């Protein structure tokens, strides 16, 4: 099997323009005849649904939340990047492109990333027109700040609630289309399977989470905008409901899963405090604009009050190791440095798993009021969770799972290897390589939904005239039958262990062996452990209640069942990628000073995994990464 990425020919900075000039158009009269299914209502899903409906397509949009406004994009705090160069500080489309490729440690596809940088400016225009209240200067112009991995200020923000405001903008557009009747919205509805007809994605099977009813829906194309799989780690900054089910079900129907081991561990989260904990809370990366990260130089000082430790006895380790980027080093590097400091026994707080993020200097320089204006809600959130006042005492932070760069494989059209199945936002793999830069997830979600898929979808749809299928097709009945059997199968196990305990155990395995540091031995061990845990799950899961009506344990059980298969795929991918790159750190491959050591000769490719059936080892399909413009170099932020 070979993968055709369908990257347009021509110079990098002309590819997207050339593509748009040659893309197939669907006339307004024909758009009305097409039905689209969009799963997920986050930034990618809501923006795609609103835009495609506005253009005349008939859209059905599904989300598991009780309202599309609650998709997890809402929790993004810091900001959204765009190559506007409003600060006149030397930014450009090329620089945003280059920073993103470099930030991803040269494991992303050049053409997709360049397109992302090209459309980034339009996103800001679009959002302002929608009424997104971005931060402004007194003169009335938009304000910017810096994020990790960049030496310019290109991040637009709305206090610490940028994701919320961008999502509410997309949700408003979606709501408008719902009111006009061009989008039919299905909240509290979870996709449980993908339906293929003659090898094309033509529909989905869903469960109504209120009634428990399982139904199928047909369409001319299916768009998955279902986010990432960070919850495979149990503890993450993801919402409780975030899951891999939609993409993994599609994977089992033939869609290739690309780079599953590329996960992002975010450096600034509130540390774990106990085993009852259900999630980890992120403290926005924007805090690193003004906060300084440090640990005591000596182990003996770790228990002391931070204010009593004199300047000379503090190790501002990011500033020391990466003087040119300092506290704004990229996420993977910052996380690993924090872990190293804690592994050396210099961590602070309970269990020694924490480093300080200190605002004392910034407060001295700017005054508390300015800091309050910039980050007030984050400080409040921190106090609420930890009971500590970060204006007086440095925050304690520790890395936590935050984002997943891997996802379903897509070509330049954002179409997977299954014709008709398109994948947008975090759910695909294409733009962030082995590490995502801060404020780029919002950018990608909205780029895909507002400005990419509206242009690329036509190339597929124009091949589908007269090929409509409806949900009475035998393929739908078959998928429906299988889904019902699977749901009933979970209920029928009637074992002794609640679903929560399986999920926690899986999370610990993933964190210990497939987290910030990975090794061949550990990953091999993890695969065995996951297989055993999965066996136990299918023989000892205990669920109370049936498949009718609201049963949240049943919902979770279905998701955990998929995580138990997916976790193994992640470990296999991590094991196969015998190099370090970005967030994927194999302890066997590091430079003398502990940085990730890439192996471009052997591993400059996308790992795309093909499902080969229950219990079979998946097949690795490689898409070579060809760099026409940039020359992959050793990433240095020193």
């Amino acid at each position, binding site marked *: 099997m070979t993968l055709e990425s369908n990257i347009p020919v021509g110079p990098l900075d002309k590819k997207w323009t050339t593509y748009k000039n040659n893309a197939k158009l669907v006339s307004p009269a024909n758009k009305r005849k097409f039905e689209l299914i969009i799963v997920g209502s986050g930034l990618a899903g809501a923006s795609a649904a609103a835009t495609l409906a506005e253009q005349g397509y008939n859209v059905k949009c599904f989300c598991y*939340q009780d309202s599309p406004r609650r998709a997890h994009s809402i929790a993004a705090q810091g900001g959204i990047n765009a190559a506007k160069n409003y600060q006149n500080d030397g930014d450009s489309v090329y620089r945003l492109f280059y920073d993103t490729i470099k930030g991803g440690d040269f494991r992303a596809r050049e053409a997709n990333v360049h397109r992302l940088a090209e459309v980034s400016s339009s996103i800001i225009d679009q959002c302002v027109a929608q009424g997104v209240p971005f931060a402004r200067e007194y003169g009335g112009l938009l304000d910017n700040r810096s994020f990790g991995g960049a030496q310019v200020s290109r991040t637009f923000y709305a206090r610490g609630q940028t994701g919320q405001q961008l999502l509410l903008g997309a949700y408003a557009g979606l709501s408008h289309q719902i009111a006009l009747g061009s989008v039919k919205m299905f909240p509290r509805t979870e996709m449980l399977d993908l339906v293929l007809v003659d090898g094309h994605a033509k529909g989905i099977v869903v469960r109504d989470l209120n009634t428990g009813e399982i139904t199928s829906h047909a369409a001319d194309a299916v768009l998955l905008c279902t986010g990432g799989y960070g919850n495979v780690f149990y503890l993450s900054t993801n919402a409780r409901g975030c899951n891999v089910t939609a993409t993994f079900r599609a994977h089992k129907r033939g869609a290739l899963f690309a780079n599953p081991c590329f996960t992002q561990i975010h450096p600034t989260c509130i540390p774990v405090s106990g085993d009852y904990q259900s999630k980890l809370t992120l403290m926005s990366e924007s805090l690193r604009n003004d906060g300084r990260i440090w640990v005591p130089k000596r182990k003996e000082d770790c228990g002391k009050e931070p204010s009593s430790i004199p300047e000379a006895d503090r190790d501002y380790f990011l500033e020391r190791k990466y003087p040119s980027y300092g506290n704004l080093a990229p996420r993977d590097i910052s996380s690993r440095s924090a872990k190293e400091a804690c592994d050396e026994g210099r961590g602070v707080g309970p269990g020694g798993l924490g480093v300080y993020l200190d605002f004392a200097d910034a407060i001295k320089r700017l005054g508390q009021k300015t800091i309050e204006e910039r980050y007030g809600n984050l400080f409040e959130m921190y106090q609420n969770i930890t009971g500590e006042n970060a204006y007086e005492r440095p925050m304690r932070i520790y890395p936590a799972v935050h984002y997943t760069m891997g996802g379903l494989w897509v070509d330049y059209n954002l179409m997977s290897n299954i014709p008709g199945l398109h994948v947008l936002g975090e759910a695909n793999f294409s733009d962030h390589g082995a590490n995502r830069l801060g404020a780029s997830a919002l950018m990608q979600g909205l780029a895909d939904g507002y400005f990419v898929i509206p242009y690329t979808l036509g190339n597929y749809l124009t091949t589908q005239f007269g090929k409509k299928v409806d949900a009475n097709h035998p393929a739908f009945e078959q998928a429906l039958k299988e889904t019902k059997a699977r749901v009933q199968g979970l209920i029928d196990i009637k074992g002794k262990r609640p679903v929560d305990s399986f999920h926690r155990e899986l999370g610990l395995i993933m964190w210990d062996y497939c987290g910030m540091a990975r090794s061949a031995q550990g990953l091999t061990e993890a695969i065995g452990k996951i297989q055993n845990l999965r066996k136990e799950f299918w023989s000892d899961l205990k669920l109370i209640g049936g498949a009718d009506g609201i*049963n949240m344990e049943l919902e979770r059980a279905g998701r955990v069942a998929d995580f138990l298969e997916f976790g193994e795929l992640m470990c296999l991918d991590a094991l196969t990628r015998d190099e370090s790159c970005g967030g994927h750190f194999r302890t066997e491959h590091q430079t003398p000073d502990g940085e990730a050591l890439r192996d471009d000769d052997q591993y400059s490719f996308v790992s795309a995994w093909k499902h080969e059936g229950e219990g079979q080892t998946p097949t690795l399909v490689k898409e070579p990464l060809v760099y026409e413009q940039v020359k992959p170099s050793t990433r240095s932020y020193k």
Partner: protein
Amino acid sequence: MKFHLKVWRQKNSSSEGTLEDYTAENVPADASFLEMLDIVNNNLTGKDVPPIQFDSDCREGICGTCSLTINGIPHGPGRGTTCQLYMRNFRDGDTITIEPFRADAFPVQRDLVVDRSAFDRIIQAGGYISERSGSAPDANAVPISKTIADKAMDAAACIGCGACAAACPNGSAMLFVSAKVTHLGLLPQGKPEADRRVLGMVRQMDKEGFGNCSNYYACEAVCPAGVPAAYIGRMNRQYSAASVKEMVGMTV
């Protein structure tokens, strides 16, 4: 810590509900309220009792999914969402009553889960700026003073949780509606549709069965996003002006 819980259990939207007694034991003080319920649910599963169904998602105070009335107060004591409430705010041995958000327009679906789709329909009735993807002018083309942008942000911070309506003795959603009307109405981009918006949203609010504001300010007291009740007055003025314009045929 140990708590005595009185929890609202209701099989579905058409059945009657009752308060049932449960005990929460060995709860760490640093656990969140929802984590306390997770612990209780795991124990209930062990005893073959159907776990308590309650909504939550982001668990960091922003998605607006969690919706519990704790000891009679939506989101419980303190300012913030249910998920941001920590057990250290209670005393060991406390009796805690847990009910769903109560408002006529939020029917209970099961146990502590309510249907808040009325809020979505209110937004659909006008809570947007009609704008085609790709047709926007440059983002800096229209300067907006920092004061206006900040005020719009204050209003836009609403998380749509519904605590305002649940706290109001009249079950009024006017804080929610006024937040959106204010957010969009303050910005130059939102002005062309301001009249249509306020008329559409307020009428939909009435149609959904939400009551009117009678100045209790209970909404403001429980709002996790700190949306001020003053916006309601602002919305009322805008509504009156828009209705007059409509009467004389000046509004489309």
